[in-house]
């Protein structure tokens, strides 16, 4: 009974969060000094498209109509929800008019999901396993070395890591020739070995950079967590019981230290829908982060809303899942 109550109220909160977030995100750009029509005209004039003042004036007027930006903010807001609820349509992109936002997202999202979910999981596993070992066996030399390495890698700004990898592995030792996009020229996304091999090769450097940075983060927190757990009484008890070191490490320390890491993993999986902007810029990798960034710089309200909506849904859902499942995992917490 208590659980049902909790569940219902938690799900209500979930929808409230999504609604409030999206309203928030809808309003902020509309009160900032950005305007999609101005952005498009700015782009056309910046590239030197020669248009005299009379033609520009005419264009400004008709673009506003084409984009459907004529009504008040309230009308636009109502329209927005109507479109979403009646079929999940985010409308056309302004900067890439007439292409629809859904199509643009559909094109970019798979790249993001495959790169980020893979690297998140890999770095999570590596970080946690190695972190548990070093945290438990904190006095071994390799623990100290690893901790120091992680401590130094962790604060390096990500783009410096990325640039170093490019310089090192694409220029000085060109093992991974520089490329742009998700696959080589002429290789089209499809389910065959050529494409998968190619996509893996192209994704290697961006993935490596993400794993390095992600590993540092997971490692340091797991290291700290397992150190704490190793101090707990049940570990001493297990030692007294005569269990081997490895048994203690895996069955007691790791299992307990893992709990908060599982929550954090769930949330990280939620945030992958934000994309990885700097990765995408540095490695010219297709993805949703760059799409979102471009949407902001070109005041493409529809595209912005489309991507942020997906991301809000993902993160809010991850929070919901964590909240509901956590008490099952950690019996010390009760629903309230």
């Amino acid at each position, binding site marked *: 009974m208590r659980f049902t109550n909790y569940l219902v109220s938690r799900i209500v909160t979930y929808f409230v969060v999504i609604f409030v977030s999206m309203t928030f995100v809808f309003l902020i750009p509309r009160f900032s*000094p*950005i*305007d999609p029509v*101005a*952005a498009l005209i*700015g*782009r056309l004039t*910046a*590239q*030197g*498209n*020669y*248009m*005299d*003042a*009379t*033609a*520009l*004036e*005419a*264009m400004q*007027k008709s*673009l506003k109509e*084409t984009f459907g930006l004529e009504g008040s903010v309230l009308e636009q807001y109502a329209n927005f929800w109507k479109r979403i609820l009646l079929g999940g349509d985010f409308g056309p*992109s*302004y*900067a*890439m*008019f*007439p*292409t629809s936002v859904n*199509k*643009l997202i559909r*094109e*970019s999202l798979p790249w993001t999901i495959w790169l980020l979910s893979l690297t998140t999981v890999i770095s999570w596993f590596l970080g946690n396993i190695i972190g548990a070992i070093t945290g438990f066996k904190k006095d071994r030399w390799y623990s100290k070395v690893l901790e120091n390495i992680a401590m130094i890698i962790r604060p390096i700004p990500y783009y410096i890591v990325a*640039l170093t990898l490019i*310089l090192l592995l694409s*220029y000085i*030792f*060109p*093992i991974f*020739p*520089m490329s*742009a*996009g998700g*696959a*080589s*020229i*002429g290789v*089209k*996304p499809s389910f065959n070995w050529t494409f998968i091999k190619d996509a893996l090769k192209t994704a290697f450097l961006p993935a490596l950079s993400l794993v390095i940075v992600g590993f540092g983060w997971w490692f340091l927190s797991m290291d700290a967590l397992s150190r704490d757990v190793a101090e707990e009484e049940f570990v001493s008890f297990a030692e007294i019981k005569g269990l081997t070191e490895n048994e203690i490490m895996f069955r007691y320390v790791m299992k307990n230290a893992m709990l908060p890491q599982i929550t954090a993993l769930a949330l990280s999986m939620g945030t992958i829908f934000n994309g990885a902007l700097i990765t995408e*810029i*540095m490695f*010219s990798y*297709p993805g949703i982060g*760059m799409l979102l960034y471009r949407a*902001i*710089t*070109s*005041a493409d309200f529809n595209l912005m809303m489309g991507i942020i909506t997906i991301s809000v849904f993902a993160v809010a859902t991850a929070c919901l899942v964590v909240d509901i499942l956590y008490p099952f995992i950690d019996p010390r917490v009760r629903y309230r």
Partner: protein
Amino acid sequence: MKKVFMLMTLLVLSFSLIFAIQLPAGISRSETLICDIDGGRVGNPNLWNPYAPGWRGDAGLHTVVMEYMWEINSQTGKWVPLLAEGFPEALDDTYTKWRIRLKEGIYWSDGVEFTAEDVAFSIMMLATHEEIPIYTFWHGLIKEAKAEDKYTVYIELKRPYAKLITLFASVVWGPQFKVVPKHIWEKVDDYAKFENNPPVFTGPYVLKDYDPSGYWFLYEKRKDWDRSGLGKTVGEPTPKYILYYTYGTEEKRIIAAAQHNLDQLVALTPEGWDALRRRDKYAMAWYKSFPWGWPEDPCAKGITFNCAKPPFDNKLVRWALILAIDAVEVNKRGFGGTVKYSPYHIPPLTAYKEPYFDPLDSWIREFSLPDGYKPFDPEIPVKTAKEYAPKYDIPTDPESAKDMFGYGWWKYDPVEAEKLLKSQGFTKKDGKWYLPNGEPWRITIVGHGAFNDSTRIALIVADQWRRFGIDANAQLVEASAFTAMHQTGDFEVSTGWPGCGAIADFWSSIGNGFHKRWVKPIGEVTTSNVQRWVNDEYSRLADEMEKYQPTDPKVVEIGREMLKILIEEQPFTPIVGTTKIVPVDTYYWEGWPTFDNQYMAPTWWWGNFKLILPHLKPTGRK
């Protein structure tokens, strides 16, 4: 351990041999020209309709696939008829009836002949269809367009318009009018949503393949290239394949060019070029040596004042701020000394020397402010030449300095600036300036965050004004905010580039653009004259200029008077011209235009890029 190390080294070495870019099977690198994409990744690579608002021309569509009626040779300022024969002929004195002749024997890439019917259809499409948003202007202009015979188009206008050719001919980048094949487009219902994929145009190349994520586009030369406009006019374009490829950040483009995987680059920073030329002996820019870049880009960069906001409505205040700018330092820190000074409100182009700069030279030297002070300093180019002479061995005599760095700029004279401000009621206490009403003077300079030139000028000028005693700072904003803030007048000073022009007739740019009719109150959107500068005499001259065809000598006469007003008033102040450092890597392809061989301008991202293609020669390297 040693063995492992050896093995690693061997592995690395064997991999290092794989240097070249991987091309699809059957396409050899030596037949392929690899080009940079100006705007980076293409958001929607399926869109090939040049009338859709979100179209992109810079990934090959308008450089090698589409052809304009007239392309421009921006080095000479002359138009090259590509699809047309000769120039438009005015049939009456009021410029309402026109005739355009077309070349014979040009075919669309799908084999259908290109005729007057196509041109007439395209014009009427723009003149009658509401859904093509960019072209509402045409609705009010075109009355009728029809094919008189297979190669002659007759156009009748609703109102006199002497500048008709500027709608059809590329002046900068590309024109408004793009001719489309009637036999395909007449079947389309909604032109704004039409994707036009695959594109059918008259150009010498056709789309072969492209990346669904928009990072690369591969084009193949038409077998019947001789039936394209370029083939008829200039000759056979050399590369069999053209690959447009975007590597992304400047660092990556530099590496790619150094590895000979990018033959041509669009705009590097001076520092980026410095980095590339040290690594790649095949890399080459416009000049063999300093100042490297191509100085003929059609927009001068500088600062813009919002003349509707006090105290910038006072021209003496504007002049005081100009005299507090040290242009030599702007050139040095912002551009490594590679740019030309631009005292006039049109860019410092070679094409403008004869009509404007030389005739006005004695006038500008004698020009004085109301208090008799002569602000012009012709010595500035020499100063820059002397600064770089020790490092690059360049001449420092006034004439060579003028060729390299322009005619001069305004003096850096904080004393005179102080005098001007004090005469306008400003006060200076403890080295800080106060407005006439007693408040401290703060200025925010808005810069365009995505354009290096704009960013750097904003930051440098802000620094110089701070030293002068004004609490100035630079605000860098993204593209969308930059334009929106200008349009609504929500800025004080910005670093935009309103001073554009490429042909002697600058009516379409700063002529009509600074007409007082566009001025609207702050808060309302205006697309032109965002400076909100009202000048009756200037507007009258602009109206006068509109009455003449671009080639009429009267245009230049009126233009000189207009420039004088701009110099006196300074609603915006160009500081330097734009030097584009657009290097090429000559490992695979030679014959690029350079300062020593100026057959064309190195405008890879303009429609006229195709005019360069027949001049390229393969080096034969594999």
